[in-house]
Protein backbone atom coordinates (compact mmCIF):
# COMPACT_ATOMS: atom_id res chain seq x y z
CA UNK A 1 0.00 0.00 0.00
CA UNK A 2 1.34 3.42 -0.95
CA UNK A 3 1.27 6.72 0.89
CA UNK A 4 -1.52 9.08 -0.10
CA UNK A 5 -0.13 12.50 -0.84
CA UNK A 6 -2.05 15.44 -2.30
CA UNK A 7 -0.19 18.70 -2.76
CA UNK A 8 -1.95 22.03 -2.74
CA UNK A 9 -1.13 24.72 -5.27
CA UNK A 10 -1.87 28.42 -5.78
CA UNK A 11 -4.34 27.41 -8.53
CA UNK A 12 -6.32 25.18 -6.17
CA UNK A 13 -6.19 26.80 -2.71
CA UNK A 14 -9.58 25.26 -1.91
CA UNK A 15 -7.99 21.79 -1.61
CA UNK A 16 -6.16 20.99 1.63
CA UNK A 17 -2.77 19.28 1.62
CA UNK A 18 -3.02 15.59 2.43
CA UNK A 19 -0.29 13.32 3.73
CA UNK A 20 -1.35 9.81 4.75
CA UNK A 21 1.74 7.78 5.64
CA UNK A 22 1.45 4.00 5.42
CA UNK A 23 4.67 3.28 7.37
CA UNK A 24 4.04 5.55 10.37
CA UNK A 25 0.23 5.62 10.35
CA UNK A 26 0.33 9.38 10.69
CA UNK A 27 -2.38 10.91 8.50
CA UNK A 28 -2.68 14.66 8.11
CA UNK A 29 -5.06 17.08 6.43
CA UNK A 30 -3.60 20.58 6.35
CA UNK A 31 -4.78 24.02 5.19
CA UNK A 32 -8.18 25.04 3.92
CA UNK A 33 -11.02 22.97 2.48
CA UNK A 34 -13.77 24.75 0.57
CA UNK A 35 -13.94 22.99 -2.78
CA UNK A 36 -17.18 22.28 -4.64
CA UNK A 37 -18.37 18.67 -4.80
CA UNK A 38 -16.50 17.94 -1.61
CA UNK A 39 -17.22 14.22 -1.68
CA UNK A 40 -15.15 13.79 -4.84
CA UNK A 41 -12.07 15.05 -2.99
CA UNK A 42 -12.69 13.09 0.22
CA UNK A 43 -13.75 9.76 -1.34
CA UNK A 44 -10.13 8.63 -2.07
CA UNK A 45 -9.14 9.60 1.49
CA UNK A 46 -11.90 7.41 2.90
CA UNK A 47 -10.96 4.56 0.57
CA UNK A 48 -7.29 4.77 1.62
CA UNK A 49 -8.23 4.74 5.32
CA UNK A 50 -10.59 1.80 4.89
CA UNK A 51 -7.83 -0.20 3.21
CA UNK A 52 -5.27 0.88 5.81
CA UNK A 53 -7.31 0.00 8.90
CA UNK A 54 -8.15 -3.38 7.40
CA UNK A 55 -4.53 -4.21 8.30
CA UNK A 56 -5.20 -3.41 11.99
CA UNK A 57 -2.50 -0.77 12.17
CA UNK A 58 -2.32 2.25 14.45
CA UNK A 59 -3.76 5.54 13.13
CA UNK A 60 -2.67 8.96 14.29
CA UNK A 61 -4.98 11.39 12.53
CA UNK A 62 -4.00 15.06 12.58
CA UNK A 63 -6.54 17.64 11.43
CA UNK A 64 -4.76 20.91 10.78
CA UNK A 65 -7.45 22.86 8.95
CA UNK A 66 -7.61 26.62 9.40
CA UNK A 67 -10.88 26.79 7.48
CA UNK A 68 -13.37 24.28 6.08
CA UNK A 69 -16.84 24.91 4.70
CA UNK A 70 -19.87 23.06 6.02
CA UNK A 71 -19.86 20.80 2.98
CA UNK A 72 -16.33 19.67 3.87
CA UNK A 73 -17.42 19.25 7.48
CA UNK A 74 -19.80 16.48 6.37
CA UNK A 75 -16.92 14.58 4.77
CA UNK A 76 -14.70 15.14 7.81
CA UNK A 77 -17.48 13.66 9.94
CA UNK A 78 -17.51 10.59 7.68
CA UNK A 79 -13.78 10.12 8.34
CA UNK A 80 -14.27 10.51 12.09
CA UNK A 81 -17.14 8.00 12.02
CA UNK A 82 -14.90 5.51 10.24
CA UNK A 83 -12.17 6.01 12.85
CA UNK A 84 -14.67 5.63 15.69
CA UNK A 85 -15.93 2.35 14.26
CA UNK A 86 -12.32 1.15 13.99
CA UNK A 87 -11.67 2.20 17.58
CA UNK A 88 -14.80 0.38 18.80
CA UNK A 89 -13.51 -2.79 17.15
CA UNK A 90 -10.26 -2.48 19.11
CA UNK A 91 -8.24 -0.42 16.61
CA UNK A 92 -5.57 1.91 17.94
CA UNK A 93 -6.72 5.43 17.00
CA UNK A 94 -5.68 8.88 18.12
CA UNK A 95 -7.15 12.03 16.62
CA UNK A 96 -5.56 15.41 17.18
CA UNK A 97 -7.36 18.57 16.12
CA UNK A 98 -5.03 21.54 15.72
CA UNK A 99 -6.60 24.98 15.95
CA UNK A 100 -5.76 28.64 16.08
CA UNK A 101 -6.50 29.82 19.66
CA UNK A 102 -7.36 33.22 18.17
CA UNK A 103 -10.14 31.71 16.08
CA UNK A 104 -13.29 32.63 18.04
CA UNK A 105 -15.38 29.70 16.72
CA UNK A 106 -13.13 26.68 16.27
CA UNK A 107 -13.36 25.25 19.79
CA UNK A 108 -17.17 25.08 19.53
CA UNK A 109 -16.78 23.48 16.12
CA UNK A 110 -14.50 20.76 17.46
CA UNK A 111 -16.82 20.20 20.42
CA UNK A 112 -19.67 19.60 17.94
CA UNK A 113 -17.56 17.05 16.06
CA UNK A 114 -16.71 15.37 19.37
CA UNK A 115 -20.41 15.01 20.20
CA UNK A 116 -21.36 13.86 16.69
CA UNK A 117 -18.56 11.37 16.18
CA UNK A 118 -18.27 10.07 19.73
CA UNK A 119 -14.48 10.19 19.34
CA UNK A 120 -12.10 11.62 21.90
CA UNK A 121 -10.70 14.48 19.80
CA UNK A 122 -7.61 15.93 21.38
CA UNK A 123 -7.25 19.68 20.92
CA UNK A 124 -3.85 21.12 20.16
CA UNK A 125 -2.97 24.67 19.24
CA UNK A 126 -0.91 25.56 16.17
CA UNK A 127 2.63 26.44 17.14
Amino acid at each position, binding site marked *: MENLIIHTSPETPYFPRVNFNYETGVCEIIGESFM*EETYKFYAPLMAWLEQYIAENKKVVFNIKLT*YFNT*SSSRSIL*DILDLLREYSEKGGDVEVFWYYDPNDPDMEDEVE*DFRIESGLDLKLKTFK
Partner: protein
Amino acid sequence: MKKKARPLPSMSRKFKNVIAYEGPFFIHILTVFSKYVKILTRDYPDASKKIYKIFFELTQNITYYSAEINEINQDNRTGVGKFSLDEDEKYYYFSTTNRVLKEHGEILKNRCNYINSLDSNNLRELKREQRILSQGEKLGAHIGLMQAALISNFALKVEIRKINREYSMYTLMVTLDKI
Protein backbone atom coordinates in the same frame (compact mmCIF):
# COMPACT_ATOMS: atom_id res chain seq x y z
CA MET B 1 -28.79 34.58 22.79
CA LYS B 2 -28.71 35.95 19.28
CA LYS B 3 -28.94 39.71 18.95
CA LYS B 4 -31.41 41.39 16.65
CA ALA B 5 -30.47 42.00 13.02
CA ARG B 6 -29.60 45.50 11.92
CA PRO B 7 -31.37 47.03 8.90
CA LEU B 8 -30.15 46.24 5.40
CA PRO B 9 -27.36 48.54 4.20
CA SER B 10 -29.56 50.02 1.47
CA MET B 11 -31.84 51.44 4.14
CA SER B 12 -29.26 53.77 5.65
CA ARG B 13 -26.76 56.29 4.36
CA LYS B 14 -24.38 55.59 7.22
CA PHE B 15 -23.15 52.35 5.68
CA LYS B 16 -19.99 52.30 3.63
CA ASN B 17 -19.31 49.64 1.04
CA VAL B 18 -16.12 47.66 1.59
CA ILE B 19 -16.32 45.36 -1.43
CA ALA B 20 -19.05 44.06 -3.73
CA TYR B 21 -19.41 41.83 -6.78
CA GLU B 22 -22.14 40.77 -9.15
CA GLY B 23 -21.83 37.93 -11.66
CA PRO B 24 -21.15 34.19 -11.82
CA PHE B 25 -19.93 32.61 -8.57
CA PHE B 26 -17.19 30.35 -9.92
CA ILE B 27 -14.91 29.11 -7.16
CA HIS B 28 -11.84 30.79 -8.63
CA ILE B 29 -13.60 34.16 -8.58
CA LEU B 30 -14.74 33.62 -4.98
CA THR B 31 -11.22 32.63 -3.96
CA VAL B 32 -9.82 35.91 -5.29
CA PHE B 33 -12.51 37.98 -3.55
CA SER B 34 -12.03 36.07 -0.29
CA LYS B 35 -8.42 37.26 -0.19
CA TYR B 36 -9.57 40.88 -0.54
CA VAL B 37 -12.19 40.34 2.15
CA LYS B 38 -9.42 39.19 4.49
CA ILE B 39 -7.18 42.15 3.64
CA LEU B 40 -9.94 44.76 3.86
CA THR B 41 -11.14 43.60 7.29
CA ARG B 42 -7.75 42.88 8.89
CA ASP B 43 -8.07 45.77 11.38
CA TYR B 44 -10.65 43.63 13.20
CA PRO B 45 -9.07 40.14 13.38
CA ASP B 46 -11.94 38.28 15.06
CA ALA B 47 -14.53 39.78 12.74
CA SER B 48 -12.27 39.15 9.77
CA LYS B 49 -12.09 35.41 10.55
CA LYS B 50 -15.85 35.26 10.93
CA ILE B 51 -16.54 37.15 7.70
CA TYR B 52 -14.17 34.85 5.80
CA LYS B 53 -16.16 31.80 6.94
CA ILE B 54 -19.54 33.38 6.28
CA PHE B 55 -18.33 34.62 2.90
CA PHE B 56 -17.83 31.07 1.65
CA GLU B 57 -20.98 29.64 3.23
CA LEU B 58 -23.27 32.21 1.66
CA THR B 59 -21.54 32.69 -1.68
CA GLN B 60 -21.31 28.94 -2.24
CA ASN B 61 -25.06 28.72 -1.59
CA ILE B 62 -25.43 30.96 -4.66
CA THR B 63 -22.98 28.75 -6.57
CA TYR B 64 -25.22 25.76 -5.92
CA TYR B 65 -28.73 27.12 -5.64
CA SER B 66 -29.20 30.34 -7.60
CA ALA B 67 -31.97 30.06 -10.17
CA GLU B 68 -29.85 32.14 -12.55
CA ILE B 69 -27.10 30.03 -14.09
CA ASN B 70 -23.94 30.92 -15.96
CA GLU B 71 -22.83 28.07 -18.17
CA ILE B 72 -19.50 27.97 -20.01
CA ASN B 73 -19.97 24.33 -20.96
CA GLN B 74 -21.65 21.24 -19.50
CA ASP B 75 -18.97 20.74 -16.86
CA ASN B 76 -18.57 24.39 -16.00
CA ARG B 77 -21.77 25.95 -14.77
CA THR B 78 -22.42 28.01 -11.68
CA GLY B 79 -25.01 30.18 -9.99
CA VAL B 80 -25.18 33.93 -10.59
CA GLY B 81 -25.79 36.51 -7.90
CA LYS B 82 -24.17 39.32 -5.97
CA PHE B 83 -22.51 39.87 -2.63
CA SER B 84 -21.76 43.01 -0.70
CA LEU B 85 -19.70 43.67 2.39
CA ASP B 86 -20.61 46.95 4.09
CA GLU B 87 -19.62 48.54 7.34
CA ASP B 88 -20.40 51.27 9.79
CA GLU B 89 -18.58 52.26 12.96
CA LYS B 90 -19.53 49.16 14.93
CA TYR B 91 -20.57 46.45 12.51
CA TYR B 92 -19.87 44.63 9.28
CA TYR B 93 -22.84 43.61 7.13
CA PHE B 94 -22.38 40.80 4.65
CA SER B 95 -25.22 40.21 2.21
CA THR B 96 -25.87 37.97 -0.77
CA THR B 97 -28.61 38.32 -3.37
CA ASN B 98 -29.74 35.83 -5.97
CA ARG B 99 -32.72 34.77 -8.00
CA VAL B 100 -34.86 31.97 -6.62
CA LEU B 101 -38.06 30.27 -7.67
CA LYS B 102 -40.95 32.09 -5.99
CA GLU B 103 -41.94 29.07 -3.90
CA HIS B 104 -38.32 28.58 -2.75
CA GLY B 105 -38.24 32.17 -1.48
CA GLU B 106 -40.96 31.41 1.03
CA ILE B 107 -39.22 28.21 2.13
CA LEU B 108 -35.95 30.10 2.66
CA LYS B 109 -37.70 32.85 4.60
CA ASN B 110 -39.38 30.32 6.89
CA ARG B 111 -36.08 28.48 7.35
CA CYS B 112 -34.33 31.70 8.40
CA ASN B 113 -37.17 32.60 10.75
CA TYR B 114 -36.88 29.19 12.37
CA ILE B 115 -33.12 29.55 12.75
CA ASN B 116 -33.66 33.00 14.29
CA SER B 117 -36.12 31.55 16.80
CA LEU B 118 -33.48 29.24 18.32
CA ASP B 119 -30.86 30.17 20.88
CA SER B 120 -27.23 29.24 20.19
CA ASN B 121 -27.32 25.89 22.03
CA ASN B 122 -30.46 24.70 20.27
CA LEU B 123 -29.11 25.91 16.95
CA ARG B 124 -25.86 23.98 17.47
CA GLU B 125 -27.89 20.90 18.32
CA LEU B 126 -29.97 21.31 15.15
CA LYS B 127 -26.81 21.81 13.10
CA ARG B 128 -25.35 18.57 14.45
CA GLU B 129 -28.56 16.67 13.70
CA GLN B 130 -28.78 18.06 10.17
CA ARG B 131 -25.13 17.32 9.42
CA ILE B 132 -25.53 13.69 10.42
CA LEU B 133 -28.76 13.36 8.43
CA SER B 134 -27.45 15.03 5.27
CA GLN B 135 -26.34 12.79 2.41
CA GLY B 136 -23.12 14.76 2.14
CA GLU B 137 -22.94 14.28 -1.60
CA LYS B 138 -23.22 16.81 -4.37
CA LEU B 139 -24.98 19.63 -2.53
CA GLY B 140 -23.18 19.49 0.77
CA ALA B 141 -24.42 19.39 4.33
CA HIS B 142 -27.34 21.88 4.15
CA ILE B 143 -26.22 23.65 7.31
CA GLY B 144 -24.68 26.79 5.83
CA LEU B 145 -27.42 29.13 7.06
CA MET B 146 -27.20 27.73 10.58
CA GLN B 147 -23.45 28.07 10.50
CA ALA B 148 -23.70 31.71 9.37
CA ALA B 149 -26.15 32.48 12.18
CA LEU B 150 -23.95 30.75 14.77
CA ILE B 151 -20.80 32.53 13.65
CA SER B 152 -22.40 35.98 13.51
CA ASN B 153 -24.43 35.63 16.71
CA PHE B 154 -27.01 37.96 15.18
CA ALA B 155 -30.35 37.06 13.68
CA LEU B 156 -30.33 36.50 9.93
CA LYS B 157 -32.08 39.19 7.93
CA VAL B 158 -34.05 38.05 4.89
CA GLU B 159 -35.68 40.04 2.12
CA ILE B 160 -37.73 38.46 -0.67
CA ARG B 161 -38.63 40.74 -3.59
CA LYS B 162 -40.98 39.47 -6.28
CA ILE B 163 -39.61 39.81 -9.83
CA ASN B 164 -42.38 38.14 -11.81
CA ARG B 165 -44.83 35.26 -11.52
CA GLU B 166 -42.07 32.68 -11.45
CA TYR B 167 -39.08 34.24 -9.65
CA SER B 168 -38.14 36.34 -6.63
CA MET B 169 -34.88 37.99 -5.57
CA TYR B 170 -33.65 36.61 -2.28
CA THR B 171 -31.35 38.73 -0.11
CA LEU B 172 -29.78 37.38 3.04
CA MET B 173 -27.80 39.62 5.36
CA VAL B 174 -25.56 38.69 8.25
CA THR B 175 -24.39 41.22 10.81
CA LEU B 176 -21.08 40.96 12.66
CA ASP B 177 -19.64 42.91 15.55
CA LYS B 178 -16.38 44.53 14.59
CA ILE B 179 -15.03 43.99 18.10
